[in-house]
């Protein structure tokens, strides 16, 4: 098990290497020259050349890649071209909001998704099952930004229950954080919960049709114990897998949702960086998002051994 964990962690290194190459070459494939953006419209050719030189844009790409990776390995993500601040500092300022939002969204998604999935699977074709069919279709078809506007319209503009803007970080206390984070987290979480609910329903229906569930009925086990102890435990693997695979969906969704609810998170930083051709920031955010995804997958793979005693590495 520990050997497997180590091997899996080592395997993540080449993956991150490939990601680094792609992220770095973005600079060369993407249109727009950061030097031109910084210098502005009135700059002379000489100014531009000076800026290019100060950003090392005139060096050989291979040399620059090597020194970039070297710096990364020392924890140096470079300096923002636009603001002049260290990238890591910029990310550090904003990571808290995004991580808080994503965790809350995941919490909503998992709670709503698993509950709905179990209720639907309990009686196939019943009221809950039909409700889930509608919810699933809606959740899948509505992108998070539409959901965000609907929620903002209903709960903020019309009912005035919750604010649209003025995000409070979790360090401001759980009350203010929840008040301002519920709507963005729900916008992200509902789409995700539809995904989880559908997988939970399918996995539960499959488990409920197994002989071990019939055996449990013969044992005189109550419905709740059958659902949770016998069926859900056996349905856990696909559910955990879909939760893991939803993380990139969440990362993509935060960029948009943060914009709508004015959350000072990584998403906003990323959008600004793209508009300003602020490559060090773009590269760092993409690299860190990939790292989060790779780590999530690693954790999920390792969790299989805890979830199913038949799986041993």
């Amino acid at each position: 098990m520990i050997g497997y964990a180590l091997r899996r962690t080592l395997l993540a290194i080449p993956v991150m290497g490939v990601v680094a190459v792609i992220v770095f070459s973005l600079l060369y494939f993407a249109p727009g020259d950061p030097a031109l953006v910084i210098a502005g419209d009135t700059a002379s050719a000489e100014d531009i050349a000076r800026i290019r030189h100060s950003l090392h844009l005139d060096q050989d790409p291979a040399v620059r890649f090597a020194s970039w990776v070297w710096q990364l390995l020392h924890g140096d993500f470079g300096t923002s071209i636009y603001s002049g601040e260290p990238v890591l500092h910029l990310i550090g300022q904003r990571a808290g909001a995004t991580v808080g939002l994503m965790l809350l969204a995941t919490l909503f998604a998992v709670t709503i998704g698993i509950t709905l999935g179990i209720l639907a699977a309990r009686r196939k074709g019943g009221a809950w099952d039909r409700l889930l069919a509608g919810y699933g279709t809606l959740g899948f078809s509505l992108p998070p930004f539409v959901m965000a506007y609907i929620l903002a319209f209903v709960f903020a503009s019309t009912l005035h229950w919750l604010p649209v803007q003025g995000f409070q970080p979790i360090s401001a206390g759980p009350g203010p954080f929840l008040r301002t984070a519920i709507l963005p987290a729900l916008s992200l979480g509902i789409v995700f919960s539809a995904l989880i609910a559908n997988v939970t329903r399918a996995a539960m229906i499959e488990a409920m049709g197994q002989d071990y569930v019939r055996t449990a009925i013969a044992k005189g086990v109550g419905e709740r114990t059958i659902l949770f102890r016998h069926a859900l435990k056996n349905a856990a693997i696909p559910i955990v897998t879909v939760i893991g695979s939803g993380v990139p969906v969440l990362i993509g969704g935060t960029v948009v949702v943060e914009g709508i609810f004015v959350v000072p998170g990584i998403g906003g930083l990323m959008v600004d960086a793209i508009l300003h051709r602020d490559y060090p920031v773009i590269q760092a955010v993409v690299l860190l998002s990939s790292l989060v995804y790779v780590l999530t997958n690693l954790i999920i793979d390792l969790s299989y051994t805890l979830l199913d005693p038949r799986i041993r590495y």
Partner: protein
Amino acid sequence: MTTPILDVHQLRTWYPVRRGLLGRGAAWLRAVDDVTFTVMRGETLAIVGESGCGKSTLGRTILRFVEPTEGNVWLDGHRITEMSRVELRRLRRHMQVVFQDPASSLSPRMRVRDIIAEPLVNFGLAGDRAAVDARVADLLCQVGLPRSAAERYPHEFSGGQRQRIAIARALAPEPDLIICDEAVSALDTSSKAQIVNLLSDLQQRLGLALLFISHDLAVVEHIADRVAVMYLGKIVEIGERAALFEQPAHPYTRALLSAVLDPSPARRHARIMLRGEVPSPIDPPSGCRFRTRCPYAFDRCAAEEPELRERPNGQSAACHLDALPALS
């Protein structure tokens, strides 16, 4: 002692089937259609028939995993059809089940100890943890498994061992009746023999009644006291094993028995080949359901459904013929 432990009376399990694009419940699949029999305490009744004849549905209906459409089932004098869920849960203690595939009937997520202990705890049959452990060890010993098996998971065992676990689990609440639904069909020949011997052993020791659902006539001949033959949801012949195997009174029973391979070449007999396919249980033939494949069918068979009638050597068969023509 004269009340049967299991009394099944005119039991019907029909499944609604859709027909066409919009048709709903327009037709019924008659999986079990008017089945009546009893099982006495300590007795083994085997239900045989080819796949799709409704024998598994019959077992599931008796256990009320499937709701019957009509008819009644009494377990030790208690009518379990029309019992509420709560009453039924209490009564389940007396009626257990062993399924065909122990790989799927034992939850892969539970240790053997928990699998066997769960019914003890549910039915309040054991006091403290030590008592449960002692009972689990005792049950494992009864089915010939080591005490250490308790701490392991089902996938760590072979097929035959897993079926022993399933049997230990079924024995745990000290039932009066165990329904074995193809309990040995998935096992290889040597474990099959061991499990059959284990079952008849336990039965004699504990006075269990077994309802042994199987398509394997060789196994049935070994374990059953009485045999019921099913065809398309109905019992076509039922009687003492010896009488039924010696002198089948229904043409279907005769054809089934002729398909059993006898290990001794000297005793091999002519195989009766049946024509055609089993008709659909959605549209069973009129009159006798077997008439479309019966070598002896005549006019009356299409017009009138034969009742189960007692025959001179004790068994009952649903055939208009009083005696089957001699085999050429």
